[in-house]
């Protein structure tokens, strides 16, 4: 069976059911309808509001993502190669990690105001932990024998870091990055919902405030599109940086 056609069939069935039952069966006030949402979305695109608000969210997400990922990779490498430091900082990191990061939003609003900075910091905090933990695990998981074999070749610490530790950890780093994409959006969108007059989160909140169900759905569609786009970018960078993994997925599994 052609997977693509199957998916398309499910998609069409779903939307047709939604379209037809909206009105006769369910109050459109709650569920709106695909045609209405499409119209609203088109309106957002034409008026340029989608791009102005979406742009803000993209900037927040990307800046937070890059900031959090950079610091996360750095700290992960540092602690991964320095067991003593890792042990000393463990309680602090565990305490902050166990905190739902969104709970920090009010504090960040107090510190950084309701501007773009607060969303960037919130996003960065969320991304930091995911990337840091994965990088740290990656560095710890480096094959000890592998390192010894390189030492026999005369390798020093900087050789080990550049030739083994970092490339080996990078797969874990990317697992962290891929996990982070939806969470990075949580940071930006929640930040916007809580306090903002710009961004897709604001658009969402604003539409809900006017009881505009189609508007809410249109904003959700925009957020989904953004998430998929970011995910695709991360994947693209991944295959670029790790060409040896490219055709791994195409091969049949073997033991």
């Amino acid at each position, binding site marked *: 069976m052609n997977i693509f056609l199957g998916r398309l069939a499910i998609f069409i069935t779903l939307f047709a059911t939604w379209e037809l039952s909206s009105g006769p069966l369910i109050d459109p006030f709650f569920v709106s309808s695909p045609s209405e949402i499409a119209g609203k979305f088109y309106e957002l695109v034409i008026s340029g509001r989608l791009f102005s608000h979406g742009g803000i969210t993209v900037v927040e997400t990307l800046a937070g993502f890059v900031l959090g990922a950079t610091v996360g990779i750095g700290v992960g490498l540092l602690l991964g190669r320095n067991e003593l430091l890792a042990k000393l900082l463990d309680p602090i990191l565990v305490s902050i990690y166990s905190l739902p990061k969104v709970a920090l939003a009010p504090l960040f609003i107090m510190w950084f105001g309701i501007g773009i900075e607060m969303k960037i910091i919130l996003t960065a905090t969320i991304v930091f932990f995911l990337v840091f933990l994965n990088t740290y695990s990656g560095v710890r998981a480096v*094959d000890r024998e592998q390192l010894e074999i390189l030492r026999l*070749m*005369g390798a020093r610490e900087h*050789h080990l870091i550049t*030739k083994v530790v970092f490339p080996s950890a990078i797969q874990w780093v990317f697992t962290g990055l891929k996990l982070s994409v939806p969470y990075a959006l949580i940071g930006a969108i929640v930040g916007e919902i809580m306090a903002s007059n710009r961004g897709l989160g604001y658009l969402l909140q604003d539409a809900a405030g006017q009881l505009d169900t189609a508007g809410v759905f249109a904003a959700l569609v925009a957020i989904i599109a953004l998430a998929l786009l970011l995910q695709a970018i991360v994947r693209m960078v991944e295959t670029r940086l790790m060409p*040896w993994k490219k055709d791994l997925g195409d091969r049949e599994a073997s033991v």
Partner: protein
Amino acid sequence: MPVALKAITTPAGAERDERASALIQFIGVSKSFTVKGVAKQASHSINLSIEKGEVVTVVGPSGCGKSTLLNMVAGLFAPTEGQVVYNGKAVCGVNGRTGYMTQSDHLLPWRDVVGNIAVPLEIQGMPKVQRRERIQELIKLVGLEGFEKSYPSQLSGGMRKRAALARLLAYDPETLLMDEPFAALDAQLRMRMQTELIRLSRRLNKTVIFVTHDLDEAVALGDRCLIFAGRPGTIVKDVPIPLGEERNILQLRKDPRYHQLCGDLWDFMTPSLNDAAEGNRA
């Protein structure tokens, strides 16, 4: 190398000379590890001397200190008692004149064949042009032409072993320490790799210490076979294998001397295997 061979075939008379010129010497070596505060002895009273150019195979049941022996030659850990002497000097810290190969090939999955072989050359700081030439040479040597740009995940087990061997030879270590490198290969491939190893080590005059579980392999490859036994382990027998340096491993199967030697090793090993089995049961 003829000197080494003579020393092996006439063990009694040449022993003193052999010691004087030995490349690797173990003098009363014992090693214990501390696991959770309890010292556990891995091997004891090992006395051994290996000539340059010799191929020495090491057999014995698991856990009797065969790998420990290799690690001490490589300087990855120091003996608890006694001394390991390499080329007239006590081994202290990583011994850069040795190369290590284990059952897993330890190729870097993010580098292709050329990139993997380049690792030791990059560490040495060899200029790029020279490096390229040397890598081409090595690829030819191990028969990996046409797979220069393949990643380890795209290679078969045998080709990965070849790549690992090329990388090992790239930095030209004097001594090859091999810890069951061919254990995971099928019989035919193993025989081919054995042939390659013997050919290359003879041609490049390498000293080889080769740990294996396979007694046939120990006889086929070695000029000499060390039998380890006991927990903690020690060398219980040092068997010369006078099959000649330029032997054909494929033809060995038809050689009665080969079967005699394998049979002798089996007879010698079986009691120790029985002991080990009983020891485990108790």
